[in-house]
């Protein structure tokens, strides 16, 4: 496939533990084209770590190994920290969960966007400001001039997340990794933010990785879904087909969700099978 933006084969992230190494992520292989890929799983399943590993954001003592990790023509397995620094923002960008914590609290939001722009593109202050204003408009902020001069505590959660998206997209990356981008937002705002992100990603022909614990959200938003359990991808399926998933873990998760209009006296609880922990090849 010529349209593959990212290919990962046998990704493994390990942390040293008391009794030998603990693999937070293991045997993870996937490719990403110009599509929306969802990664779902519960806390500790390694879904966020997978996203971070792609950006080289696993801090020591954690270690990343992979048979192959390739972004276009760049081999990520051989890349130095300086190489990653050039890559981040420019070619891969990441939207984090809570804008309250991921924006710099003492810097005007517009300046934060402009800073990203200047980091990657040769531009003067004025040009960067204009680019930032344009980007704010692209994420449907009504009064960009006014919002530019606000501090993060002065904007709402939904607006903060749109600012975050603006900041991540201003350098025109190929891939956007969104780690629980809407979990801190109200459901009604969630849809808005996702729609904005979706439009921009589509119109720019980017690849999107959406990391989330919300099965409904992922199955309705993405094209393809990876289901992770204990560091491994246990199942890959088309998002629309998630209801027909075959792995007992995925089925257990789906069954445990309360459903509107289908009230059950008791929710079936997930019975974890130790066999799910075995290495998949």
């Amino acid at each position, binding site marked *: 496939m010529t349209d593959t933006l990212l290919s990962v084969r046998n990704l493994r992230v390990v942390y040293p533990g008391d009794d030998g190494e603990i693999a937070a992520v293991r045997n993870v292989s996937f490719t990403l084209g110009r599509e929306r890929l969802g990664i779902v799983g*519960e*806390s500790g399943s390694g879904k966020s770590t997978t996203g971070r590993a792609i950006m080289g954001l696993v801090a020591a003592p954690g270690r990343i190994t992979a048979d192959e990790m390739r972004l276009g023509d760049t081999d990520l397995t051989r890349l130095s920290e300086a190489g990653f620094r050039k890559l981040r923002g420019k070619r891969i960008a990441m939207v984090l969960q809570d804008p309250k914590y991921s924006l710099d609290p003492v810097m005007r939001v517009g300046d934060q966007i402009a800073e990203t722009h200047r980091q990657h593109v040769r531009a003067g202050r004025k040009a960067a400001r204009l680019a930032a204003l344009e980007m704010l408009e692209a994420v449907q902020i009504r009064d960009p001039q006014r919002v530019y001069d606000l501090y993060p505590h002065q904007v709402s*959660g939904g607006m903060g997340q749109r600012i975050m998206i603006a900041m991540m997209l201003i350098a025109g990356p190929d891939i956007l990794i969104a780690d629980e981008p809407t979990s801190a937002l*109200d*459901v*009604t*705002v*969630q*849809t*808005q933010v*996702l*729609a904005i992100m*979706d439009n921009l990603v589509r119109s720019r022909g980017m690849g999107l990785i959406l990391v989330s*614990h919300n*099965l*409904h*959200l992922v*199955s*309705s*938003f993405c094209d393809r879904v990876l289901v992770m359990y204990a560091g491994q991808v246990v199942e890959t399926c088309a998002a629309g087909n998630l209801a027909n998933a075959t792995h007992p873990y995925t089925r*257990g*998760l789906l069954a*445990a*969700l*309360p*459903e*509107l*209009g*289908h*009230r*059950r*006296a*008791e*929710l*079936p*609880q*997930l019975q974890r099978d130790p066999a799910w922990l075995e290495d998949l090849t």
Partner: protein
Amino acid sequence: MIVLDQTSVFYGKGARRIAAVRDVSLRVAEGEAFGLVGESGSGKSTVLRAIAGLIPHATGTVLLDGHDMGRRRTTAQRRMTQMVFQDPYGSLHPNHTVDQTLSMPIAIHKLGDADRRVPAALAEVGLGREHRFRYPHQLSGGQRQRVAIARALILEPRVLLLDEPTSALDVSVQAEILNLLTRLRRERSLTVLMVSHDLAVIAHLCERIGVMSGGELLETTTADALAAGQVSHAYTRELLRSNQGFDASGVA
């Protein structure tokens, strides 16, 4: 069991006074489960806090079991309503063992017999004796929420107030906690008032549901009507649609 009549709650003073809850009236019968949904800032948690007596209500009345709740409540009145909070990481004292956490309310309310009550309360929420002398950081999120529920139930309240009890938990753990709450409610014929932004969770546990926005109670409906899409308010419809996952057509 719970009656709110034209209840308002204000924060701040003078010109900066903000009505967090405005003229909310609702009745919850004994043994009933009532749910409140709405987005952040809609005042749903404030209603809960006003009923629990954690904040004073400015106008209107709050009746619990037929008694008017004034500014000060008696110990017995406080004991009647107990609350479970959203974040099991924040609502347990990090330096107190489970035993200390559960013994505190017994001491305050002078119930005595802590040595029998604590293990019994733990058993009831599905925790074993081995958890009794652990600290919160030695427990998982689901286990902590069980401790929080045990802390509320150890006083044998008649009203249980739940503020987003499962939103910090994984789906599989959420199912366990919801099942636990369903069982406890049945066994103790508790009156439950639950707040959540997740319509499916609310509809699972509660028969009647109130929708709040901007400090007002927009409408009261039943779980069945909500599932069938029979709602009168535009806001409720939007909430219903957002809960069904992502749908780009719903965004202008």
